[in-house]
């Protein structure tokens, strides 16, 4: 519920006497209020209407800034025929009846588009039937509008709340009739997000704002060399710090291994931080102090150079080796992308309260159900004894679907036998991982005598998330490592085409980062497609379109952005444009970026984007997400690598890890392509084509091909 106007919620929260303690206001014993299975006035798992006409809609996807607080309820409200202003929105808390509740992979709208509309339609049909019965009229003479059922001819009207008792007794329709999209009143409109006011006046409650009576505060000392083991703890000085209560050894459970950490517990966060500064721990680093990103890159550059072994992706086709041997011209290119951090401005934090065999958790989590599974496994609680209060997330980008910080808080509360808020500082966030894996790409392309692209080989080397997180080998990873560049995502018609993965096993904790493998794959792939276009002597846009004759929807995104950006038209002297496209998470985005010369480098004059995400639930929010993707994509291309030397991350805070600031952000223009197709994702697909469009523009302007990220825009060398 933290997503809605809190005052309104407080006014009516008494109605639902079970389940919904305010996340931030833990009462004497919140564990007595575990969510029960059925609520009064529950028409289905997502719609609850009470007799006093309060309408509650459940949002099954946590909001990390992507707008699920609006998009999910809109789907229900559309079919339920209510205005969002008139309903209360409550976050789900992991209960099975709400289905999958993880926000990740830009899946919210595309997986819930049908089911949530059905939930709204079910309730609408039940209410309509109840009204028809009451009036003794045929159902088809009644319709729903604005929270009421209306009888067409007599104009009699009855509010949902007056019908709910009767409606709840009716059978839930299995396949309710969904509205024709042309009748949509909410979907497709750029309606203001109703939670925005709470995000500009300080009342929105993020994980870090959780507060429960009697709560202690903790920060954690992690081993600077990730995976270091505790040899000894000297807490004498730490315990002398005013406010410090205790120093406790705790476990940091990564998905694949559990490592040591030490919590400093105090009466406030500042005291805990001071205590940490005074704490002395001797660590046994084993061989982990030999881990370095430089060695990692050396290994994977060798792997793609040697061209031996590796795992071939499933949709490989033709005989690339033979085709390359026969080709008139062969082009090679080796690309590198860095490790990078998510760095949400709200650092990882969790408030936990273990009481006996039960635990209640307040956390910024990308998935309350995922979190429950992890806590059950790592901390040893029965799922039914775990209560999760999903708080707003102050950014996440994949990081807050990795629950090491939650497991730490639960472990600490258990050991303290008290409620505790455990907070990571920026140093923990940047220096402890997990991070996006660094990748290297070895590409070869072959042109025939007519300059047609006849062979394409992409050797992709680096860490494999599934392998580290769950020992899933490449052959069982559904070619996740080839996302964005495999045939189904990048449908260029190339007769001989292969992606080959070289797994680099690494101790560096790695995880998904906004748009995951596509975020790096597309850089190499789309820059290399440009290299091939230039080698063929063709315009890069035309070269791509020639390979997309059977893919009109994909090609249209390129054409659309090209037209909007005036691609191919004369530019002012000293300017050039670059183009790139990528399909990921169900949507296709393309960019034209214009650059100009500036000293030894270039300046980005403008970024123009087009995105085809099918039906856009809220086009303005799709734009907002794309704006964010431009900034994050540019940050990752131009700034912020994470580097590790002797096992230690070298970037400790925002003075060394430097996402773009306002004065570095170029003008941008986003076009959401009108569509009646099924919705795709919106939170991630806008990111991957940013870096290649920029680097393709730089090549067109300067003749210099950027193959390694990040690079210095002000000095191209």
């Amino acid at each position, binding site marked *: 519920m933290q997503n809605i106007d809190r005052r309104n919620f407080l006014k009516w929260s008494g109605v639902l006497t079970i389940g919904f303690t305010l996340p931030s206001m833990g009462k004497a014993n919140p564990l007595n209020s575990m969510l029960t299975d059925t609520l009064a006035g529950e028409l289905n798992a997502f719609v609850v209407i009470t007799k006093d006409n309060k309408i509650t809609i459940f949002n099954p996807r946590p909001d990390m800034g992507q707008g699920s607080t609006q998009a999910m309820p809109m789907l229900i409200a559309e079919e339920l025929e209510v205005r969002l202003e008139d309903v209360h929105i409550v976050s789900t808390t992991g209960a099975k009846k709400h289905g999958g509740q993880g926000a990740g992979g830009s899946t919210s709208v595309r997986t819930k588009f049908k089911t949530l509309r059905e939930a709204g339609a079910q309730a609408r049909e039940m209410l309509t039937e109840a009204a028809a019965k009451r009036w003794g009229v045929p159902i088809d003479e009644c319709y729903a509008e604005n929270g009421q059922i209306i009888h067409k001819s007599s104009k009699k009207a009855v509010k949902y709340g007056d019908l709910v008792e009767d409606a709840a007794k009716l059978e839930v329709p299995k396949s309710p009739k969904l509205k024709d999209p042309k009748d949509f009143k909410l979907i497709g409109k750029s309606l203001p997000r109703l939670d925005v006011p709470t995000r500009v006046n300080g009342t929105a409650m993020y994980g*870090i704002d959780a507060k429960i009576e009697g709560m202690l505060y903790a920060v954690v000392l992690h081993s600077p060399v990730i995976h270091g083991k505790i040899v000894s703890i000297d807490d004498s000085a730490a315990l002398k710090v005013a406010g410090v209560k205790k120093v406790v050894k705790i476990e940091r459970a990564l998905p694949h291994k559990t490592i040591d950490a030490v919590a400093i517990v105090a009466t406030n966060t500042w005291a805990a931080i001071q205590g940490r500064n005074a704490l002395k721990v001797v660590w046994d680093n084993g061989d982990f102090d030999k881990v370095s990103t430089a060695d990692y890159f050396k290994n994977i550059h060798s792997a793609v150079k040697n061209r031996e072994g590796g795992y071939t992706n499933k949709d490989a086709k033709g005989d690339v080796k033979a085709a390359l041997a026969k080709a008139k011209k062969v082009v090679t290119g080796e690309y590198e992308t860095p490790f990078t951090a998510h760095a949400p401005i709200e*650092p990882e934090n969790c408030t936990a309260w273990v009481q006996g065999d039960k635990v209640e958790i307040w956390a910024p989590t990308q998935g309350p159900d995922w979190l429950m599974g992890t806590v059950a496994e790592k901390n040893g609680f029965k799922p039914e004894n775990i209560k999760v209060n999903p708080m707003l997330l102050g950014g996440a980008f994949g990081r807050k679907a990795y629950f090491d910080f939650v497991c730490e808080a639960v472990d600490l509360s258990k050991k303290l036998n008290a409620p505790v808020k455990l907070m990571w500082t920026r140093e923990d966030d940047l220096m402890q991982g997990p991070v996006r894996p660094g990748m290297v790409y070895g590409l070869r392309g072959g042109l025939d005598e007519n300059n047609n692209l006849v062979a394409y080989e992409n050797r992709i080397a680096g860490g494999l998330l599934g392998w580290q997180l769950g020992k899933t080998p490449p052959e069982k990873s559904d070619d996740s490592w080839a996302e964005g560049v495999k045939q189904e995502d990048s449908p260029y018609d190339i007769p001989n085409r292969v992606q080959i993965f070289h797994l680099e096993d690494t101790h560096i904790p790695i995880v998904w980062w906004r748009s995951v493998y596509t975020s790096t794959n597309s850089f190499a792939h789309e820059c290399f497609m440009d290299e091939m276009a230039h080698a063929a002597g063709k315009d890069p846009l035309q070269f791509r379109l020639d390979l997309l004759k059977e893919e009109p929807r994909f090609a249209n995104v390129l054409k659309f952005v090209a037209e909007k950006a005036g691609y191919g038209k004369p530019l002012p002297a000293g300017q050039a444009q670059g183009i790139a496209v990528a399909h990921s998470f169900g949507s296709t985005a393309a960019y034209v970026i214009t650059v100009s010369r500036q000293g030894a480098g270039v300046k980005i004059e403008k970024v123009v984007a087009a995105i085809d995400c099918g039906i856009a639930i809220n086009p303005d929010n799709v734009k907002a997400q794309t*704006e964010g993707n431009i900034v994050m994509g540019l940050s990752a291309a131009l700034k912020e690598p994470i580097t590790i030397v002797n096992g230690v991350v070298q970037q400790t805070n925002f003075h060394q890890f430097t996402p773009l600031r*306002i004065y570095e952000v170029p003008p941008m223009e986003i076009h959401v392509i009108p569509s009646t197709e099924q919705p795709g994702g919106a939170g991630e697909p806008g990111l991957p084509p940013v870096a290649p469009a920029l680097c393709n523009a730089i090549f067109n302007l300067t003749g210099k091909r950027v193959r390694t990220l990040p690079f210095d825009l002000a000095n191209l060398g």
Partner: protein
Amino acid sequence: MAKYTLNINGKPTILEAEPNMPLLWALRDIIGLTGTKFGCGMSQCGACTVHLNGSPVRSCSVPLSQVKKGKITTIEGISTDTNHVVQQAWIAEQVPQCGYCQSGQIMSAVALLKSNPKPTDADIDNAMSGNLCRCGTYQRIRKAIHLASDMLKENGGKMEMPKGVKTASSMKG
């Protein structure tokens, strides 16, 4: 421990804390004003921006001993009903995504408009350069500051909008 009477959002607030405790943690952990956010602890991200005697400061780096009788304004204190022109402009432009950094962004923007009611893009870049937004809302922040500047002029230079004027649609265009 020392006893302080801080002037926060126009109200005297008594608390006991260590003199070296940054204002941020006093606001958040002791006083319970959690609208001011923690992001870095070293004046790099601006999420903790508040006003001290009208000027923006990073509260993570201002110890209580330095605050003294200074007037502190936090995000909770800039308007009575979310009706500050900057808040209204932020709503009209739908600036926030996750919103976590926006308290700090807004405090910086309010301070900018106080000293410079008609800022240029360069003025905005300069005044807002200390505030990071990882969601990438910078383009909308820029637009919203220009809008707030226009609203300020229409509102006779008063920072708080009259009651009732608060929907996004009434702000736009």
